[in-house]
């Protein structure tokens, strides 16, 4: 069954950052504004991340009715409701599994998962690494806020060693995951990192990920000043923005010459590097839905061949 879309026609704007386009216009095209308020805490990084995703949809030129997003539980879990896209808001950690099904069943959809760090790397880690291994054409966006925010700030697999959370009041005893390294190790063909303190760069990373043919992973460093920040000496949103700004360096290999971002360039001698931003991995590999389509064509040809003989 196909129903003609009554949505306003979207003119894709290619290869221009287009940050000047009025926000209202983009909101009209891509977003769904809640009647009373957004569910994010005041100053939360998720709002900025959401804005970057919206701009990235525009930059990548997607038809929002052909976008399917998936997510589970966490602070971010309302975000799927705030877009005009289709969305599964399911149980904790299954975003990549839903995305696998959506993309395999309808490869023409643009499939994006919106997941938190606990959601993606703790309970949903298995689905994440296996989706990456298959190199299926989905975009996984991980909002890394260093803790389980929705439940009140317990440590997550990403919580930095020694930092304080509700369940590590004496300091986090476990080493943290580097989500990007995990993704690269699992076989993700596109891996990038950015922070909400670098909105233009973040938008570009997400747009590139959406346009990428294959499994794309973007780690969005997104502050939670209310829980993690407060317990670790950064109680205001601005403290954490400064923290991101001060500790970020750019992986130069990913920056085209015509796009400059106000981020220091990474050098190997850098001692205090916390976040290397930019595209950290990019390799061409066979894409899973295309490979499966070939297998299917072969199987179907075999059956019709048999029926004829």
């Amino acid at each position, binding site marked *: *069954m*196909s*129903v*003609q*879309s*009554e*949505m306003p026609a979207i003119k894709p704007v290619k290869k221009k950052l287009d940050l000047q386009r009025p926000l209202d216009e983009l909101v009209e095209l891509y977003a*769904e504004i*809640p*009647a*009373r*308020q*957004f*569910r994010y805490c005041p100053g939360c990084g998720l709002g900025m991340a959401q804005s970057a995703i919206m701009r990235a949809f525009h930059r990548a030129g997607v038809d929002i*009715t*052909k976008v*399917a997003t*998936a997510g589970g539980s966490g602070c971010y*879990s*309302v975000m*799927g*409701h*705030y877009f*005009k*896209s*289709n*969305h*599964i*808001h*399911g*149980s904790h*950690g*299954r975003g*990549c*599994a*839903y*995305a*696998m*099904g*959506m*993309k*395999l*069943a*309808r490869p*023409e*959809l643009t499939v994006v998962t919106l997941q938190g760090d606990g959601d993606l790397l703790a309970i949903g880690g*298995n*689905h994440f*690494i*296996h989706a990456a291994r298959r190199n299926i054409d989905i975009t996984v966006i991980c909002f890394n806020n260093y803790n389980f925010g929705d439940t009140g700030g317990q440590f997550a697999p990403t919580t930095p060693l020694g930092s304080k959370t509700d369940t590590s009041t004496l300091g986090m005893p476990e080493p943290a995951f580097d989500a990007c390294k995990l993704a690269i190790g699992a076989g993700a063909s596109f891996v990038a990192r950015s922070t909400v303190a670098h909105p233009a760069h973040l938008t570009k990373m997400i747009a590139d990920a959406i346009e990428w043919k294959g499994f794309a992973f973007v780690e969005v460093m997104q502050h939670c000043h209310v829980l993690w920040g407060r317990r670790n000496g950064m109680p205001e949103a601005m403290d954490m923005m400064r923290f991101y700004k001060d500790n970020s360096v750019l992986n130069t290999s990913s920056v085209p010459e015509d796009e400059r971002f106000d981020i220091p360039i990474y050098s190997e001698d850098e001692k205090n590097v916390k976040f290397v931003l930019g595209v950290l991995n990019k390799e061409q590999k066979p894409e899973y839905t295309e490979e*499966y389509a070939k*297998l*299917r064509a*072969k*199987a*179907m040809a*075999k*059956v019709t061949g048999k029926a004829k003989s």
Partner: protein
Amino acid sequence: MTKRLLLGNDAFCEGLIAGGVRFYAGYPITPATEIAEAMSRRMPEVGGTYVQMEDELGSMGAIMGASATGVKSATASAGPGMALMQNELGQSIVAEIPLVVINVQRAGPGIGNATRSGQMEVMQSRYGSNGEVPAVVLSPSSVEEAFWLTVKAVNFSEMLRTVVIVLGEGMLGLQRAVVDLPDYDDIKLAERPRPSVQPDEFLGNYNANALSDVPPIADFGAGYKSILSSVGISRRGGGDISVLGLSEDDQDFTIRRLHQKILDRKNEITLFEQLMTEDAEIVYIAFGTQALSAIGAMHEARAKGIKAGVLRLITVWPFPEDIVRTCCAKARAVVVPEMNLGQVRLLVGSALANTGIKIVGVNRVDSITITPAQILEKTKEVLS
């Protein structure tokens, strides 16, 4: 019609295909593995997709995603795999995503006894998930029925926008019988209700006004804003996304509607076989493979002059209490043979409460089938 010597698990697989399933996600587990094996060959042949996921949670997630795009989807598992699936089962029932899940029951708790058979998941099928979710569970007795009932399961899941569990058993899944398969094009298929309004008038996938409503669901990518969720959605659709979670009123309506939409269609989905119950003094109530031993016992009992009858439950959930009462109108006693410690007996007991009918079970949990002789022995014991 093509006559084939068909494996029970292949019958499930063919039933899914005949029912229109074109997406299957699976994870190997004895004794359901043959379904995944067959689907890995058959799905691409019929233009569908087979994906082998990293675990049973992943299988459920993938079929939920696929069904959201409008493609009929299914998975199969057993024992501990079914236990893992409970989370997503509840989620897809409350998000009203149509799915079929085949449970080829194995024996025992925990990892159980993989190659052995049992009937131990009657209650899990209904009460295994958190929250108050309803269940539609169909249980075939023979290979041929496995095929037809799986087709029906797909139809019911679409009609009701819910998950339908086909409760198979190891000894059925690994049984072969000669079956006449029909031409699949001749089978009548049901489709989920889809929106008839334009996208800007669409009020979401949960736009219900009455408890019996099965609201339309929009396929992902069909032009609608389609959200599948159990929170942030009001009963009249759309919902207030300022708050995540339902108001008391909406929660009450949603949970009651999930049950009522099924109960209001109970006549359509309650399947059973009733044999010689009209004058039966003793009624055997059984489901799945063990119902066949009950039928065998009935014939032997009748030959001995005992007025026995059989009620074979095909739809196990929603449990057909009224049918049980009708079939036992003349009964002095009921024998419930089952390969567990009395799960259906408990349900029969509640259906026949205050009737004075004596209810006894013949129970085995050693994975060996209950024989007609054992049922007969119990019959003599109860009637004496």
